[in-house]
């Protein structure tokens, strides 16, 4: 199943409603009237796109409608899709999988409960499928049984794992993982971190330290810092992204839980403001439920009637 299929499957229920809304507001009319603004606003705001980005997206559409450059529903939707794609397009697409620096160190960060550990399991599977060797670092030494959870994933996808005891220094785990990757000649080291709210200064400092310690083994590592965002999160995700960007820098975003009814529209302002690409979306709990992100498909998923 492709990204769009899975995404759409989840969207189906809400999408029908949106489609109905759009249809009643637009299709019945031969010409599009002022109500278009409200309908589009509803679609975008309910997708968590946020007030600012929504206004920006709608503004030019409404202008074009009033200048009669957009005459029917299809034209409006196409124009809107185009704008969403523009907003999601950054200078370079994600090369998370194709980054061939060796060993590639991938540090995975995010707030609590977004699905970091599960995402790491799936990501490891992707690298292994490409024929790369992977080692996982269980540096979430805080949450109860987080280490066990990652261990189960390591067994499932059949890769190495470095762990210390619960409550130990996460920087030490990260250091050992990268060291092990170097000495064992492993291609990719993926490091799990404890979920932390971006407002907790001491925990953010700990992350900063982890990054510093990793760079002591390999100067340019971690070459990849992946921010995991939960699609069900609203406007706060923008604050999360900005804070993590400030502390660790972010190279890629993975948007999880897109198999529900949430659409994760907050990535629009995030991608635009941070200029960081979305690499993958998570659409389920199975190993293969991590799918490359495609801005056009995403936009289509949002608006297709």
């Amino acid at each position, binding site marked *: 199943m492709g990204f769009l299929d899975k995404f759409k499957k989840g969207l189906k229920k809400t999408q029908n409603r949106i489609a109905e809304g759009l249809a009643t507001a637009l299709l019945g009319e031969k010409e599009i009237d002022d109500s278009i603004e409200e309908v589009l606003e509803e679609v975008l705001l309910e997708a968590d796109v946020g007030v600012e980005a929504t206004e920006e997206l709608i503004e030019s559409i409404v202008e074009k409608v009033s200048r009669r450059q957009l005459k029917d529903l299809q034209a409006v939707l196409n124009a809107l899709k185009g704008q969403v794609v523009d907003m999601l397009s950054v200078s370079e697409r994600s090369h998370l999988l194709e980054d061939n620096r060796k060993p590639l160190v991938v540090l995975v960060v995010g707030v609590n409960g977004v699905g970091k550990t599960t995402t790491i399991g799936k990501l490891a599977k992707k690298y292994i499928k490409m024929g790369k060797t992977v080692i996982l670092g269980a540096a979430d030494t805080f949450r109860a049984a987080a280490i066990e959870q990652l261990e189960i994933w390591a067994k499932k996808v059949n890769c190495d794992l470095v762990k210390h005891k619960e409550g130990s220094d996460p920087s030490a785990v990260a250091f050992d993982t990268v060291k092990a990757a170097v000495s064992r000649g492993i291609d990719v080291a993926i490091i799990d971190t404890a979920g932390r709210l971006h407002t907790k200064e001491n925990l953010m400092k700990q992350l900063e330290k982890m990054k510093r310690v990793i760079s002591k083994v390999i100067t340019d590592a971690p070459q990849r810092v992946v921010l995991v965002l939960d699609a069900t999160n609203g406007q706060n995700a923008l604050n999360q992204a900005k804070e993590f960007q400030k502390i660790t820098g972010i190279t890629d975003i993975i948007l999880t839980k897109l198999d529900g009814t949430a659409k994760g529209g907050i990535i629009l302002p995030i991608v635009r403001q941070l200029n960081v690409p979305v690499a993958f979306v998570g659409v389920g*709990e199975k190993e293969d439920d991590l799918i490359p992100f495609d801005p056009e498909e995403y936009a289509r998923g949002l608006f297709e009637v």
Partner: protein
Amino acid sequence: MFDQLTDKLNNAFRKIKGVARITERNIEEPLREIRMALLEADVNYRIVKEFTSNVKEKALGADVSKALNPGQQFVKIVHEELVRVLGEKSEGLKLEPKKTNVIMMVGLQGSGKTTSSGKLALYLKKKGFFPILVPADVYRPAAIEQLKVVGKAVNAPVFDIGEDRNPISIAEKAVKEAMDKGFNVVIIDTAGRLHIDDELMKELKRIEEKVKPDEILFTVDAMTGQDAVKSAAAFDRELPLTGVVLTKLDGDARGGAALSVKYVTGKPIKFVGIGEKYDEFEQFYPDRMASRILGMGDVLSLIEKAEEVVDKKKAEALQKKIKKDQFTLEDFREQLLQLTKMGSMEKILGMIPGMSQIKNAKKMMDDKKIAHLIAIINSMTPEERRNHQIINGKRRKRIARGSGRPVQEVNQLLKQFVQMKKMMKQLSNPSFLGKMKNLKKLRNMNFPFQ
């Protein structure tokens, strides 16, 4: 932020000159500001629409009181309406010590069910109950292990599921064992699931039918966006929810999801999770949540906390001193000591409106710094503490040596003490909103540290 929102509203009202009443015409722009504030707080779009139209009705024709300007008046109406929707008063659990109570925790993945289960167990233990935790999440790797660790941390027993991997029979067996062994609360931690996953939703329903829970708590992440209405409505449709637990409220999310969930389910929000530690779990207070959604900061909590630790008589005496301009370094030390009693600075700061916006606020006011300030004051002679003006260069050096802090810090403390004295005189102005304005000034001068 409160200031920001009231400022915006005041501006909106100012455009219409000589406003004495809120009218159809002059309410339009303020309503738009409220609408934006709610949307930015993640309140669901449709609920915002309905809510603002209710507010409009309530506000129209309201007399603008003398004490408040139209902007403030409007915020008050909005705030009251928010509190009304969120639930007038906080509601607890309906448990009876003499029977086996069953609590079921349900929600989406990652919303914080397992942690909340542990927190709830600890909370109930403190209330004299005997809870047992039941791991019914057989899907997520290591979820069972996680609950075991949590149980150990809060010192509550965890039901041993043996080889059983069927959540329904696990729940049944656990309730039976609780009855046999005399536990009076069974907390069932179910697996996170999507509300559109029919099969897993049916599983919950079957558990519910078998064990007939006294409480079914829907756990929702305070950072949740527009989708909160859909998941909450779906869980509420399938299960007779009795309440909501709002988690991760220790971040900076405004938590509009609380309003959305309350609106669509009508079920009270019973608890909030406010930290990583297991005792950081509180009853829900609608008025505080309303302030937070509007971006007003948790002023009430702060006041309450202050009341807890500040001796009333001492406070009154201090008030008099401030008015008479007799506030001394001894009083300052007393204040600092009380401040440390209120808990960590990080928490306190989080409750002051606008503080989260100030760069380095936390750095300015960390707990160590307070200890340093107290040390400096301790190194002064009683005479110096009562009359700071006699502290000359020589005395400053001695105080620095005595406290182990650099002279600059002594200087800084004295300078700020003088500023603070001035400020406090102004703060003794009885109007609360006057105080709010002064908070703004305090912020600019980095109260009370640099």
